[in-house]
């Protein structure tokens, strides 16, 4: 089963180097274990924009978006046996944040990919 992990936080700014290093190692292990298929970090909101439809009207909003509370900072795509494995994997990832980024708060949301096909 394929899962997407989406990491969200209200925190602004880059993570401490120790966390970056630990996350690299974890990603490296997960790629070598054949579980992680893809991953990436996202630049701050200011680099992006939103195209919205409200009341039937299209509008383009340039960043930054002041009302945004939690912002998506990165994602990863995994091929895993099931939700339990996804939970174990996400927990390990978040434990790194807990240990190496005191004060940081955020969410790692995991979602199964919709099956394709008939």
């Amino acid at each position, binding site marked *: 089963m394929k899962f997407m992990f989406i990491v969200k936080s209200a925190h602004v700014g880059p993570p401490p180097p120790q966390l970056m290093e*630990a996350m690299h*190692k*974890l990603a490296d*292990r997960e*790629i*070598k*274990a*054949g*579980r992680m*298929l*893809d991953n990436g970090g996202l630049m701050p909101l200011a680099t992006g924009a939103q195209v919205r439809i409200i009341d039937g009207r299209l509008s383009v909003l340039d960043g930054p978006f002041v009302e945004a509370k939690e912002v998506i900072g990165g994602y990863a*795509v995994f*091929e895993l*046996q*099931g939700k*339990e*494995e996804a*939970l*174990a*994997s996400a*927990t*390990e990832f978040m*434990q*790194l944040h807990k*240990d190496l980024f005191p004060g940081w708060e955020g969410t790692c949301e995991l979602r199964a990919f919709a*099956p*394709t*096909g*008939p």
Partner: protein
Amino acid sequence: MRAADAHRAILAVWRIEQPRLITSLARMLRDVPLAEELAQDALLAALERWPATGVPEKPGAWLMATAKHRALDHLRRSRMLERKHEMIAWDMEEEEQTMPDLDSALDDDIGDELLRLIFTACHPLLSREARAALALRMICGLTTEEIARAFLLSDATIAQRIVRAKRTLSESGLAYETPRGEELAERLASVLEVVYLIFNEGYAAACGQDWLRPQLCAEALRMGRVLTSIAPHEPEAHGLLALMELNASRAAARTDAAGEPILLLDQNRALWDQLQIRRGMQALGRARELGGARGFYALQAAIIACHAEARAAGNTDWPRIAGFYAELAALVRSPIIELNRAVAVSMAEGPVAGLAIVDCLMREPALKSYHLLPSVRGDLLRKLGRCDEARASFEAAAALAGNKREHDLLKRRAAEAADAAMSS
């Protein structure tokens, strides 16, 4: 948390931690079957303890510490406490003073150890079936029950297969090392063969009821990715990974809503997984860069790649596919490859050229009861308008078909050919 949920959650943690656990133990004990047993003991301890205490913050470190205690106990109990063992025990007690933490766990590069473990689990001394069971257990961390369900066999059969395989490994006095030079090629072939066997077992069952059977494809892919990352200079490992990724990319398009198989040329190509195709093409490119374009797996991957690259069935480069089949047939003499070549040649040059190859194969004893031979022959005869002969071929094929779906399909084709013969 219900007990069953806790159980599944623990198994999930176990699957992630298990390779590092078993490779570390194997390195200390120089004994793979024993390492596997002690790693299993640590799992049992977790299953006993964690439902009450909850999963610890650093489950990997917990499992490792527990497994090391077991290893120490084992060595102390062992009557054969030779000097060597004392040394190991001493080393381990030293190591025990410092509880391994998550950071150092991530620092461990277990690549070489894991490769050694894979070579041991897939040793040519063992039967293919035993290698498959052992690899799923030791590399993928599947339980005996999961392996049994995946292979549609009883728990007892798989348990016995694993016990025997481990005994064979223990008694053989194999050196726990990575093969080098000429031996490496032979040993690697033995590994790749097993990974491909596991993949095909899952692929054949892609429309099965039990998700664990198709899961074998994912496990084989996982092993293929592990192999290419820890043995990155082996072209055939990349070739096999390419073949598996490219085949798996069609999973969603292979069956219709009722579970009936859809032939490759009739599949909805929009359902092919483009991420997986890209990964497959990358692996094939890597195999070629390493000089492995003519390898057994790379050639098969190259054939599938021709299909993956064709936007519509009509755009398929059949002459190129026929060329790859000719190379494959020169590499391994196999009547089944020759039959596939006949199909490709018929698509490239027309049914007459294909039929000439098929007719030669009709004398092949190995294909005497292979239903696809008369099935392909019937198809070519039908295209040539030789409907009576086509009907007879489809009837013969139906009589040989092992599964009901294929049998029914061939009967329908026979009836259609009979109708066409009547009206001509």
